Protein backbone atom coordinates (compact mmCIF):
# COMPACT_ATOMS: atom_id res chain seq x y z
CA UNK A 1 0.00 0.00 0.00
CA UNK A 2 1.17 3.54 -0.79
CA UNK A 3 0.11 5.84 2.03
CA UNK A 4 0.49 9.19 0.26
CA UNK A 5 0.46 8.69 -3.51
CA UNK A 6 0.56 12.41 -4.21
CA UNK A 7 3.89 12.84 -2.44
CA UNK A 8 5.46 9.41 -2.91
CA UNK A 9 4.63 9.02 -6.61
CA UNK A 10 4.92 12.62 -7.79
CA UNK A 11 6.70 13.23 -11.08
CA UNK A 12 10.16 14.79 -10.77
CA UNK A 13 9.17 18.27 -11.87
CA UNK A 14 6.26 18.53 -9.45
CA UNK A 15 8.43 17.27 -6.59
CA UNK A 16 11.29 19.62 -7.41
CA UNK A 17 8.94 22.58 -7.62
CA UNK A 18 7.50 21.71 -4.21
CA UNK A 19 10.98 21.19 -2.75
CA UNK A 20 12.18 24.56 -4.06
CA UNK A 21 9.17 26.34 -2.64
CA UNK A 22 9.65 24.68 0.77
CA UNK A 23 13.41 25.21 0.70
CA UNK A 24 12.97 28.94 0.10
CA UNK A 25 10.44 29.13 2.94
CA UNK A 26 12.72 27.14 5.25
CA UNK A 27 15.81 29.25 4.56
CA UNK A 28 13.89 32.48 5.06
CA UNK A 29 12.34 31.11 8.26
CA UNK A 30 15.69 29.86 9.58
CA UNK A 31 17.31 33.22 8.80
CA UNK A 32 14.62 35.07 10.68
CA UNK A 33 14.25 32.72 13.67
CA UNK A 34 17.68 31.20 14.39
CA UNK A 35 20.29 33.91 15.03
CA UNK A 36 23.14 31.38 15.07
CA UNK A 37 22.34 30.26 11.53
CA UNK A 38 21.62 33.80 10.33
CA UNK A 39 25.12 34.73 11.48
CA UNK A 40 26.55 31.79 9.54
CA UNK A 41 24.69 32.90 6.41
CA UNK A 42 25.86 36.48 6.84
CA UNK A 43 29.41 35.26 7.21
CA UNK A 44 29.04 33.21 4.02
CA UNK A 45 27.56 36.27 2.29
CA UNK A 46 24.30 34.56 1.36
CA UNK A 47 20.76 35.90 1.80
CA UNK A 48 17.50 33.92 1.70
CA UNK A 49 16.57 35.55 -1.63
CA UNK A 50 19.74 34.13 -3.21
CA UNK A 51 18.05 30.72 -3.27
CA UNK A 52 16.46 30.75 -6.71
CA UNK A 53 16.93 27.13 -7.79
CA UNK A 54 17.35 23.90 -5.83
CA UNK A 55 21.01 23.84 -6.84
CA UNK A 56 21.50 27.14 -4.99
CA UNK A 57 21.31 25.13 -1.76
CA UNK A 58 25.06 24.64 -2.25
CA UNK A 59 25.52 28.34 -1.38
CA UNK A 60 24.28 27.73 2.14
CA UNK A 61 26.48 26.93 5.14
CA UNK A 62 26.23 23.50 6.77
CA UNK A 63 24.97 22.76 10.25
CA UNK A 64 27.20 20.33 12.16
CA UNK A 65 26.69 18.45 15.39
CA UNK A 66 29.16 20.96 16.89
CA UNK A 67 26.60 23.71 16.22
CA UNK A 68 24.17 21.79 18.42
CA UNK A 69 26.78 21.38 21.16
CA UNK A 70 27.70 25.08 21.08
CA UNK A 71 24.05 26.04 21.28
CA UNK A 72 23.07 23.50 23.92
CA UNK A 73 20.34 23.05 24.96
CA UNK A 74 17.88 25.07 22.91
CA UNK A 75 19.94 27.67 21.01
CA UNK A 76 18.86 26.37 17.60
CA UNK A 77 15.16 26.33 18.49
CA UNK A 78 13.18 28.54 16.12
CA UNK A 79 10.10 28.69 18.34
CA UNK A 80 9.52 29.64 21.97
CA UNK A 81 8.89 26.71 24.32
CA UNK A 82 5.17 27.46 24.42
CA UNK A 83 4.96 26.22 20.83
CA UNK A 84 7.13 23.16 21.44
CA UNK A 85 5.06 20.09 22.30
CA UNK A 86 7.80 17.45 22.50
CA UNK A 87 11.48 17.08 23.28
CA UNK A 88 13.57 14.17 22.03
CA UNK A 89 17.27 13.68 22.46
CA UNK A 90 20.26 11.67 21.37
CA UNK A 91 23.89 11.57 22.45
CA UNK A 92 26.11 14.51 21.67
CA UNK A 93 29.84 14.39 21.17
CA UNK A 94 30.52 15.47 24.74
CA UNK A 95 28.69 14.91 27.97
CA UNK A 96 25.79 17.02 26.72
CA UNK A 97 23.09 15.42 24.55
CA UNK A 98 21.53 16.88 21.42
CA UNK A 99 18.13 18.33 22.24
CA UNK A 100 15.49 18.61 19.55
CA UNK A 101 12.05 20.22 20.00
CA UNK A 102 8.97 19.55 17.90
CA UNK A 103 5.97 21.76 17.24
CA UNK A 104 2.53 20.22 16.84
CA UNK A 105 2.99 20.39 13.08
CA UNK A 106 6.42 18.74 13.30
CA UNK A 107 4.87 15.86 15.24
CA UNK A 108 2.20 15.43 12.57
CA UNK A 109 4.83 15.36 9.81
CA UNK A 110 6.90 12.85 11.76
CA UNK A 111 3.86 10.60 12.15
CA UNK A 112 3.16 11.01 8.44
CA UNK A 113 6.73 10.01 7.49
CA UNK A 114 6.64 6.87 9.65
CA UNK A 115 3.12 6.00 8.47
CA UNK A 116 4.43 5.96 4.89
CA UNK A 117 7.20 3.63 6.04
CA UNK A 118 4.74 1.32 7.80
CA UNK A 119 2.64 1.24 4.63
CA UNK A 120 5.77 0.15 2.76
CA UNK A 121 5.80 -2.90 5.07
CA UNK A 122 2.23 -3.54 3.96
CA UNK A 123 0.70 -2.20 7.18
CA UNK A 124 -2.73 -0.60 7.20
CA UNK A 125 -5.38 0.65 9.64
CA UNK A 126 -6.55 -2.89 10.40
CA UNK A 127 -3.17 -4.01 11.63
CA UNK A 128 -1.66 -4.23 15.08
CA UNK A 129 1.75 -2.58 15.26
CA UNK A 130 4.01 -3.97 17.96
CA UNK A 131 6.50 -1.28 18.99
CA UNK A 132 9.49 -2.79 20.80
CA UNK A 133 11.83 0.15 20.40
CA UNK A 134 12.69 1.88 23.65
CA UNK A 135 10.24 4.61 24.66
CA UNK A 136 11.63 7.85 26.02
CA UNK A 137 14.02 10.50 24.79
CA UNK A 138 15.25 8.03 22.15
CA UNK A 139 13.19 8.66 19.01
CA UNK A 140 12.69 4.96 18.15
CA UNK A 141 9.72 4.09 20.34
CA UNK A 142 7.69 7.26 20.15
CA UNK A 143 8.50 7.72 16.45
CA UNK A 144 7.18 4.30 15.47
CA UNK A 145 4.26 4.91 17.81
CA UNK A 146 3.37 8.22 16.11
CA UNK A 147 3.49 6.58 12.68
CA UNK A 148 1.25 3.71 13.71
CA UNK A 149 -1.27 6.18 15.16
CA UNK A 150 -1.24 8.27 11.98
CA UNK A 151 -1.85 5.08 10.04
CA UNK A 152 -4.85 4.37 12.27
CA UNK A 153 -3.41 1.01 13.26
CA UNK A 154 -3.70 -0.51 16.74
CA UNK A 155 -0.52 0.31 18.66
CA UNK A 156 1.06 -2.03 21.19
CA UNK A 157 3.49 0.29 23.01
CA UNK A 158 5.66 -2.54 24.36
CA UNK A 159 8.96 -0.68 24.63
CA UNK A 160 12.04 -2.88 24.79
CA UNK A 161 12.93 -5.74 27.12
CA UNK A 162 11.07 -8.61 28.82
CA UNK A 163 11.24 -10.79 25.73
CA UNK A 164 8.92 -13.48 27.11
CA UNK A 165 6.19 -10.86 27.53
CA UNK A 166 6.86 -9.51 24.03
CA UNK A 167 6.22 -12.98 22.63
CA UNK A 168 3.12 -13.48 24.76
CA UNK A 169 1.61 -10.25 23.43
CA UNK A 170 2.70 -11.13 19.92
CA UNK A 171 0.74 -14.39 20.23
CA UNK A 172 -2.26 -13.26 22.23
CA UNK A 173 -2.77 -9.82 20.65
CA UNK A 174 -1.88 -11.08 17.18
CA UNK A 175 0.73 -8.47 16.29
CA UNK A 176 1.03 -7.93 12.54
CA UNK A 177 4.03 -5.60 12.29
CA UNK A 178 7.10 -5.46 14.54
CA UNK A 179 9.13 -2.27 15.03
CA UNK A 180 12.44 -2.53 16.92
CA UNK A 181 16.19 -2.57 16.49
CA UNK A 182 17.45 -5.43 14.32
CA UNK A 183 19.46 -6.83 17.23
CA UNK A 184 16.37 -6.94 19.41
CA UNK A 185 14.40 -8.57 16.59
CA UNK A 186 17.06 -11.24 16.52
CA UNK A 187 16.78 -11.69 20.29
CA UNK A 188 13.02 -12.15 19.94
CA UNK A 189 13.49 -14.59 17.04
CA UNK A 190 15.91 -16.67 19.09
CA UNK A 191 13.56 -16.67 22.08
CA UNK A 192 10.71 -17.80 19.82
CA UNK A 193 12.84 -20.71 18.67
CA UNK A 194 13.90 -21.63 22.20
CA UNK A 195 10.27 -21.60 23.32
CA UNK A 196 9.51 -24.13 20.57
CA UNK A 197 7.03 -21.79 18.87
CA UNK A 198 6.53 -22.32 15.14
CA UNK A 199 6.94 -18.90 13.46
CA UNK A 200 4.15 -19.90 11.08
CA UNK A 201 1.77 -19.80 14.06
CA UNK A 202 2.58 -16.13 14.67
CA UNK A 203 0.45 -13.64 12.78
CA UNK A 204 3.34 -11.20 12.45
CA UNK A 205 4.28 -10.69 8.80
CA UNK A 206 6.69 -7.77 8.49
CA UNK A 207 9.09 -5.70 10.53
CA UNK A 208 10.53 -2.21 10.41
CA UNK A 209 14.05 -2.30 11.77
CA UNK A 210 16.56 0.48 12.22
CA UNK A 211 18.64 2.70 14.54
CA UNK A 212 21.75 0.56 14.12
CA UNK A 213 23.76 -1.09 11.35
CA UNK A 214 22.89 -4.70 10.61
CA UNK A 215 24.09 -7.43 8.34
CA UNK A 216 22.54 -9.54 5.62
CA UNK A 217 22.97 -12.62 7.80
CA UNK A 218 21.04 -10.92 10.62
CA UNK A 219 18.30 -10.05 8.13
CA UNK A 220 18.05 -13.68 7.01
CA UNK A 221 17.96 -14.95 10.61
CA UNK A 222 15.24 -12.47 11.57
CA UNK A 223 13.16 -13.20 8.47
CA UNK A 224 13.42 -16.94 8.92
CA UNK A 225 13.16 -16.92 12.71
CA UNK A 226 9.95 -14.86 12.79
CA UNK A 227 8.60 -15.76 9.36
CA UNK A 228 8.45 -12.13 8.28
CA UNK A 229 9.77 -9.69 5.68
CA UNK A 230 12.29 -7.25 7.14
CA UNK A 231 12.38 -3.59 6.11
CA UNK A 232 15.01 -0.96 6.81
CA UNK A 233 14.07 2.32 8.40
CA UNK A 234 16.48 5.25 8.59
CA UNK A 235 16.41 8.44 10.57
CA UNK A 236 18.18 10.64 13.03
CA UNK A 237 16.91 12.74 15.88
CA UNK A 238 18.38 15.97 14.47
CA UNK A 239 16.26 15.61 11.33
CA UNK A 240 13.21 14.16 13.08
CA UNK A 241 13.82 10.53 14.08
CA UNK A 242 13.01 7.26 12.30
CA UNK A 243 11.00 7.51 9.11
CA UNK A 244 13.24 9.86 7.14
CA UNK A 245 13.63 6.92 4.73
CA UNK A 246 12.27 3.37 4.60
CA UNK A 247 12.74 0.40 2.27
CA UNK A 248 9.76 -0.97 0.36
CA UNK A 249 9.03 -4.55 -0.69
CA UNK A 250 11.54 -4.21 -3.56
CA UNK A 251 14.28 -3.97 -0.90
CA UNK A 252 16.41 -1.84 -3.17
CA UNK A 253 17.31 1.23 -1.16
CA UNK A 254 15.24 3.28 1.25
CA UNK A 255 12.69 5.76 -0.11
CA UNK A 256 13.40 9.20 1.28
CA UNK A 257 10.36 11.29 2.23
CA UNK A 258 11.75 14.03 0.07
CA UNK A 259 8.83 16.42 0.33
CA UNK A 260 9.85 16.67 4.01
CA UNK A 261 13.61 16.03 3.95
CA UNK A 262 15.81 17.22 1.10
CA UNK A 263 18.86 14.98 0.63
CA UNK A 264 22.25 15.84 -0.79
CA UNK A 265 25.41 13.79 -1.09
CA UNK A 266 28.60 15.77 -0.62
CA UNK A 267 32.25 14.93 -0.83
CA UNK A 268 33.21 14.69 2.87
CA UNK A 269 36.57 16.38 2.20
CA UNK A 270 35.69 19.20 -0.19
CA UNK A 271 32.03 19.40 0.94
CA UNK A 272 31.06 19.92 -2.72
CA UNK A 273 27.81 18.27 -3.87
CA UNK A 274 28.22 14.98 -5.72
CA UNK A 275 26.01 13.78 -8.58
CA UNK A 276 23.40 11.06 -7.93
CA UNK A 277 24.90 7.59 -7.69
CA UNK A 278 28.18 8.74 -6.20
CA UNK A 279 29.03 7.75 -2.67
CA UNK A 280 29.63 10.47 -0.12
CA UNK A 281 28.26 12.04 3.03
CA UNK A 282 24.52 12.39 3.36
CA UNK A 283 23.28 15.92 4.13
CA UNK A 284 19.66 16.73 4.97
CA UNK A 285 17.64 19.92 4.90
CA UNK A 286 14.27 19.73 6.62
CA UNK A 287 11.60 21.25 4.38
CA UNK A 288 8.69 21.67 6.81
CA UNK A 289 10.09 21.55 10.32
CA UNK A 290 9.46 24.60 12.48
CA UNK A 291 10.66 23.62 15.97
CA UNK A 292 14.31 23.03 15.12
CA UNK A 293 14.64 23.34 11.34
CA UNK A 294 17.90 22.06 9.91
CA UNK A 295 19.56 23.48 6.83
CA UNK A 296 22.23 21.27 5.30
CA UNK A 297 22.75 19.16 8.39
CA UNK A 298 25.75 16.87 8.01
CA UNK A 299 24.57 13.41 9.06
CA UNK A 300 28.12 11.95 8.86
CA UNK A 301 26.55 8.85 7.31
CA UNK A 302 28.11 7.60 4.09
CA UNK A 303 25.82 6.31 1.35
CA UNK A 304 24.65 7.08 -2.19
CA UNK A 305 21.34 8.15 -3.73
CA UNK A 306 19.33 6.35 -6.40
CA UNK A 307 16.94 8.16 -8.69
CA UNK A 308 14.26 6.71 -10.92
CA UNK A 309 10.95 4.97 -10.44
CA UNK A 310 11.00 1.94 -8.16
CA UNK A 311 9.22 -1.31 -9.03
CA UNK A 312 6.87 -0.54 -6.12
CA UNK A 313 5.52 2.46 -8.03
CA UNK A 314 7.09 5.16 -5.89
CA UNK A 315 9.18 7.83 -7.59
CA UNK A 316 10.90 9.19 -4.49
CA UNK A 317 14.69 9.20 -4.44
CA UNK A 318 16.19 6.27 -2.52
CA UNK A 319 19.27 6.08 -0.32
CA UNK A 320 21.51 3.04 -0.17
CA UNK A 321 22.29 1.44 3.15
CA UNK A 322 24.81 3.36 5.23
CA UNK A 323 28.36 2.15 4.58
CA UNK A 324 30.07 3.99 7.37
CA UNK A 325 30.63 7.30 9.10
CA UNK A 326 32.79 10.32 8.43
CA UNK A 327 33.26 10.81 12.17
CA UNK A 328 34.04 8.41 14.97
CA UNK A 329 30.48 7.88 16.16
CA UNK A 330 29.58 4.31 17.05
CA UNK A 331 26.11 2.90 17.28
CA UNK A 332 25.94 0.36 20.08
CA UNK A 333 22.65 -1.28 21.03
CA UNK A 334 20.94 1.42 18.97
CA UNK A 335 22.55 4.18 21.03
CA UNK A 336 25.01 6.72 19.63
CA UNK A 337 28.38 6.57 21.34
CA UNK A 338 31.21 9.01 20.74
CA UNK A 339 34.74 8.24 21.97
CA UNK A 340 34.87 11.85 23.17
CA UNK A 341 32.09 11.04 25.68
CA UNK A 342 34.17 8.21 27.07
CA UNK A 343 37.13 10.55 27.27
CA UNK A 344 35.24 13.06 29.39
CA UNK A 345 34.51 10.27 31.87
CA UNK A 346 38.10 9.05 32.01
CA UNK A 347 39.37 12.60 32.53
CA UNK A 348 37.44 12.77 35.79
CA UNK A 349 39.58 10.02 37.33
CA UNK A 350 43.12 10.93 38.40
CA UNK A 351 43.82 7.23 38.80
CA UNK A 352 43.55 6.71 35.01
CA UNK A 353 45.53 7.89 32.01
CA UNK A 354 43.84 9.25 28.89
CA UNK A 355 45.13 6.26 26.96
CA UNK A 356 42.18 4.05 26.29
CA UNK A 357 40.66 1.77 23.74
CA UNK A 358 37.02 1.02 23.08
CA UNK A 359 36.22 -2.47 21.92
CA UNK A 360 32.84 -3.11 20.32
CA UNK A 361 31.70 -6.61 19.46
CA UNK A 362 28.52 -8.43 18.64
CA UNK A 363 27.78 -11.90 19.92
CA UNK A 364 24.53 -13.68 19.28
CA UNK A 365 23.07 -10.52 17.76
CA UNK A 366 23.70 -8.46 20.87
CA UNK A 367 26.23 -5.63 20.97
CA UNK A 368 28.80 -5.33 23.70
CA UNK A 369 31.10 -2.46 24.49
CA UNK A 370 34.22 -2.64 26.60
CA UNK A 371 36.59 0.09 27.67
CA UNK A 372 40.24 -0.74 28.18
CA UNK A 373 41.96 1.98 30.15
CA UNK A 374 45.35 2.31 31.80
CA UNK A 375 46.01 2.99 35.44
CA UNK A 376 48.13 6.09 35.96
CA UNK A 377 51.86 5.66 36.43
CA UNK A 378 52.93 5.57 40.08
CA UNK A 379 49.53 4.52 41.38
CA UNK A 380 49.92 2.20 44.37
CA UNK A 381 47.73 -0.84 43.98
CA UNK A 382 47.83 -3.26 46.89
CA UNK A 383 44.17 -3.92 47.29
CA UNK A 384 41.60 -5.80 45.23
CA UNK A 385 38.86 -3.71 46.81
CA UNK A 386 40.46 -0.60 45.40
CA UNK A 387 40.44 -2.03 41.88
CA UNK A 388 36.89 -3.34 42.19
CA UNK A 389 35.72 -0.04 43.60
CA UNK A 390 37.42 1.87 40.78
CA UNK A 391 35.72 -0.39 38.28
CA UNK A 392 32.31 0.23 39.82
CA UNK A 393 32.86 3.99 39.84
CA UNK A 394 34.06 4.14 36.23
CA UNK A 395 31.31 1.82 34.97
CA UNK A 396 28.70 3.88 36.80
CA UNK A 397 30.03 7.15 35.35
CA UNK A 398 30.04 5.63 31.86
CA UNK A 399 26.48 4.40 32.17
CA UNK A 400 25.35 7.87 33.25
CA UNK A 401 26.77 9.47 30.14
CA UNK A 402 26.36 6.71 27.53
CA UNK A 403 22.99 5.38 28.73
CA UNK A 404 24.22 1.84 28.11
CA UNK A 405 26.39 -0.49 30.13
CA UNK A 406 30.08 -0.51 29.29
CA UNK A 407 32.43 -3.05 30.80
CA UNK A 408 35.72 -1.65 32.09
CA UNK A 409 39.06 -3.43 31.97
CA UNK A 410 42.11 -1.89 33.62
CA UNK A 411 45.54 -2.20 32.12
CA UNK A 412 49.01 -1.44 33.34
CA UNK A 413 50.30 2.03 32.63
CA UNK A 414 52.03 2.05 29.25
CA UNK A 415 50.30 -1.07 27.90
CA UNK A 416 48.36 0.60 25.10
CA UNK A 417 50.42 1.71 22.13
CA UNK A 418 51.14 5.43 22.09
CA UNK A 419 50.12 6.63 18.68
CA UNK A 420 51.73 9.27 16.62
CA UNK A 421 49.10 11.58 15.25
CA UNK A 422 45.53 10.32 15.34
CA UNK A 423 45.09 7.63 17.94
CA UNK A 424 43.15 4.52 17.10
CA UNK A 425 40.72 4.55 19.97
CA UNK A 426 38.09 2.20 18.66
CA UNK A 427 38.14 -1.38 17.54
CA UNK A 428 34.81 -2.42 16.09
CA UNK A 429 34.81 -6.18 15.69
CA UNK A 430 31.24 -6.35 14.43
CA UNK A 431 30.85 -7.56 10.88
CA UNK A 432 28.88 -5.49 8.41
CA UNK A 433 28.70 -7.96 5.52
Amino acid at each position, binding site marked *: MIWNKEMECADRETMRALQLERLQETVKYEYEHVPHYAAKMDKAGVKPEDIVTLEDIALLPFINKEDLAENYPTGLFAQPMENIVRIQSSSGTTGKPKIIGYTKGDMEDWGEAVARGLAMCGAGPNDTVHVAYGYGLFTGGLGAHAGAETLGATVLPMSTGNTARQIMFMQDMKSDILCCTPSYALTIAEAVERAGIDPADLQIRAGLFGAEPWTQSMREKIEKGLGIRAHDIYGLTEITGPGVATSCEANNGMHIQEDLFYPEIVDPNTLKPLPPGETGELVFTTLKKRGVPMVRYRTRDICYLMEGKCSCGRTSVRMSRVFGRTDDMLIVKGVNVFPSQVETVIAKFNELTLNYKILVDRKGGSDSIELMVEFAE*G*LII*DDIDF*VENMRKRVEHALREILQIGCKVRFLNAGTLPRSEGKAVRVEDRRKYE
Partner: protein
Amino acid sequence: MAVKQVSVFIENETGRLAALTQLLAEHGVDLNAATIAETGEYGILRCIVQNPEETVRILSGGGFMASVTEVLAVGIDNRPGGLNRVLQILSDAGIGVKYIYSTIQSIKGEAVIMMKTGDQNRAEKLLESADVKLCTMDELK
Protein backbone atom coordinates in the same frame (compact mmCIF):
# COMPACT_ATOMS: atom_id res chain seq x y z
CA MET B 1 58.64 -2.43 62.63
CA ALA B 2 57.11 -2.83 59.19
CA VAL B 3 58.86 -4.46 56.26
CA LYS B 4 58.63 -3.44 52.63
CA GLN B 5 56.76 -5.57 50.17
CA VAL B 6 56.30 -5.22 46.43
CA SER B 7 52.72 -5.11 45.12
CA VAL B 8 52.13 -5.77 41.43
CA PHE B 9 48.93 -5.32 39.45
CA ILE B 10 48.61 -8.18 36.97
CA GLU B 11 46.05 -8.51 34.21
CA ASN B 12 44.68 -12.01 34.30
CA GLU B 13 46.02 -13.36 31.04
CA THR B 14 47.67 -16.70 30.59
CA GLY B 15 51.43 -16.28 30.72
CA ARG B 16 51.39 -12.92 32.42
CA LEU B 17 52.54 -14.23 35.78
CA ALA B 18 55.17 -16.42 34.12
CA ALA B 19 56.48 -13.33 32.32
CA LEU B 20 56.82 -11.64 35.70
CA THR B 21 58.62 -14.52 37.38
CA GLN B 22 60.92 -14.84 34.38
CA LEU B 23 61.83 -11.19 34.66
CA LEU B 24 62.65 -11.66 38.35
CA ALA B 25 64.69 -14.79 37.63
CA GLU B 26 66.70 -12.99 34.95
CA HIS B 27 67.62 -10.34 37.47
CA GLY B 28 68.38 -12.85 40.22
CA VAL B 29 65.58 -11.67 42.49
CA ASP B 30 64.67 -14.21 45.17
CA LEU B 31 61.14 -14.33 46.52
CA ASN B 32 61.10 -14.74 50.31
CA ALA B 33 57.33 -14.68 50.45
CA ALA B 34 54.61 -14.30 47.85
CA THR B 35 50.85 -14.38 47.46
CA ILE B 36 48.29 -13.49 44.83
CA ALA B 37 44.85 -12.04 45.41
CA GLU B 38 42.70 -12.27 42.36
CA THR B 39 39.34 -11.67 40.75
CA GLY B 40 38.33 -13.14 37.41
CA GLU B 41 40.13 -10.47 35.42
CA TYR B 42 43.21 -9.41 37.30
CA GLY B 43 45.27 -10.14 40.33
CA ILE B 44 47.58 -8.42 42.74
CA LEU B 45 50.84 -10.17 43.47
CA ARG B 46 52.41 -9.26 46.80
CA CYS B 47 55.91 -10.41 47.56
CA ILE B 48 58.84 -9.91 49.87
CA VAL B 49 62.19 -9.45 48.18
CA GLN B 50 65.47 -8.21 49.56
CA ASN B 51 65.68 -5.12 47.36
CA PRO B 52 62.13 -3.85 46.88
CA GLU B 53 62.96 -0.50 45.22
CA GLU B 54 65.22 -2.16 42.68
CA THR B 55 62.60 -4.88 42.05
CA VAL B 56 59.97 -2.23 41.38
CA ARG B 57 62.31 -0.62 38.83
CA ILE B 58 62.88 -3.98 37.13
CA LEU B 59 59.16 -4.74 37.00
CA SER B 60 58.20 -1.26 35.77
CA GLY B 61 60.79 -1.62 33.03
CA GLY B 62 59.05 -4.84 32.02
CA GLY B 63 55.67 -3.14 31.75
CA PHE B 64 54.26 -4.07 35.15
CA MET B 65 52.63 -1.69 37.60
CA ALA B 66 54.57 -2.32 40.76
CA SER B 67 54.91 -0.31 43.93
CA VAL B 68 56.46 -0.60 47.36
CA THR B 69 54.01 -0.97 50.22
CA GLU B 70 54.46 -1.99 53.84
CA VAL B 71 53.38 -5.00 55.87
CA LEU B 72 54.16 -6.38 59.30
CA ALA B 73 56.28 -9.52 59.31
CA VAL B 74 55.03 -11.30 62.39
CA GLY B 75 56.86 -14.22 63.95
CA ILE B 76 54.47 -16.94 65.04
CA ASP B 77 55.23 -19.70 67.54
CA ASN B 78 55.27 -22.92 65.57
CA ARG B 79 52.58 -24.66 67.62
CA PRO B 80 48.76 -24.88 67.69
CA GLY B 81 47.26 -21.53 68.70
CA GLY B 82 50.33 -19.55 67.58
CA LEU B 83 48.49 -17.57 64.92
CA ASN B 84 45.39 -17.34 67.07
CA ARG B 85 47.26 -15.52 69.82
CA VAL B 86 48.33 -12.77 67.44
CA LEU B 87 44.92 -12.41 65.81
CA GLN B 88 43.23 -12.30 69.21
CA ILE B 89 45.35 -9.32 70.27
CA LEU B 90 44.29 -7.42 67.16
CA SER B 91 40.69 -8.51 67.35
CA ASP B 92 40.43 -7.41 71.01
CA ALA B 93 41.69 -3.99 69.92
CA GLY B 94 39.15 -3.81 67.11
CA ILE B 95 41.76 -3.93 64.36
CA GLY B 96 40.70 -5.81 61.22
CA VAL B 97 43.07 -7.94 59.17
CA LYS B 98 43.05 -7.24 55.42
CA TYR B 99 45.24 -10.10 54.36
CA ILE B 100 47.94 -12.44 55.60
CA TYR B 101 50.39 -14.70 53.84
CA SER B 102 53.43 -16.61 54.95
CA THR B 103 57.07 -16.89 53.96
CA ILE B 104 58.02 -19.63 51.55
CA GLN B 105 60.39 -21.24 54.10
CA SER B 106 60.16 -21.20 57.86
CA ILE B 107 62.70 -18.89 59.42
CA LYS B 108 64.86 -20.60 62.04
CA GLY B 109 62.04 -23.02 62.82
CA GLU B 110 59.52 -20.19 63.24
CA ALA B 111 56.63 -19.38 60.97
CA VAL B 112 56.52 -15.81 59.75
CA ILE B 113 53.38 -14.24 58.31
CA MET B 114 53.04 -11.00 56.42
CA MET B 115 50.08 -9.08 57.69
CA LYS B 116 48.19 -6.02 56.50
CA THR B 117 45.67 -4.62 58.97
CA GLY B 118 43.26 -1.73 59.03
CA ASP B 119 45.62 0.21 61.32
CA GLN B 120 49.24 -0.74 60.82
CA ASN B 121 50.70 1.68 63.39
CA ARG B 122 48.49 0.59 66.26
CA ALA B 123 48.83 -3.07 65.32
CA GLU B 124 52.61 -2.73 65.39
CA LYS B 125 52.63 -1.12 68.84
CA LEU B 126 50.16 -3.62 70.28
CA LEU B 127 52.08 -6.63 69.00
CA GLU B 128 55.40 -5.24 70.23
CA SER B 129 54.02 -4.61 73.69
CA ALA B 130 52.64 -8.19 73.74
CA ASP B 131 56.15 -9.45 72.94
CA VAL B 132 55.16 -10.77 69.54
CA LYS B 133 58.24 -10.94 67.36
CA LEU B 134 58.25 -8.57 64.38
CA CYS B 135 60.89 -9.50 61.83
CA THR B 136 63.16 -7.22 59.82
CA MET B 137 63.89 -7.61 56.12
CA ASP B 138 67.22 -9.26 56.91
CA GLU B 139 65.55 -11.89 59.01
CA LEU B 140 63.33 -12.90 56.11
CA LYS B 141 66.21 -13.95 53.85
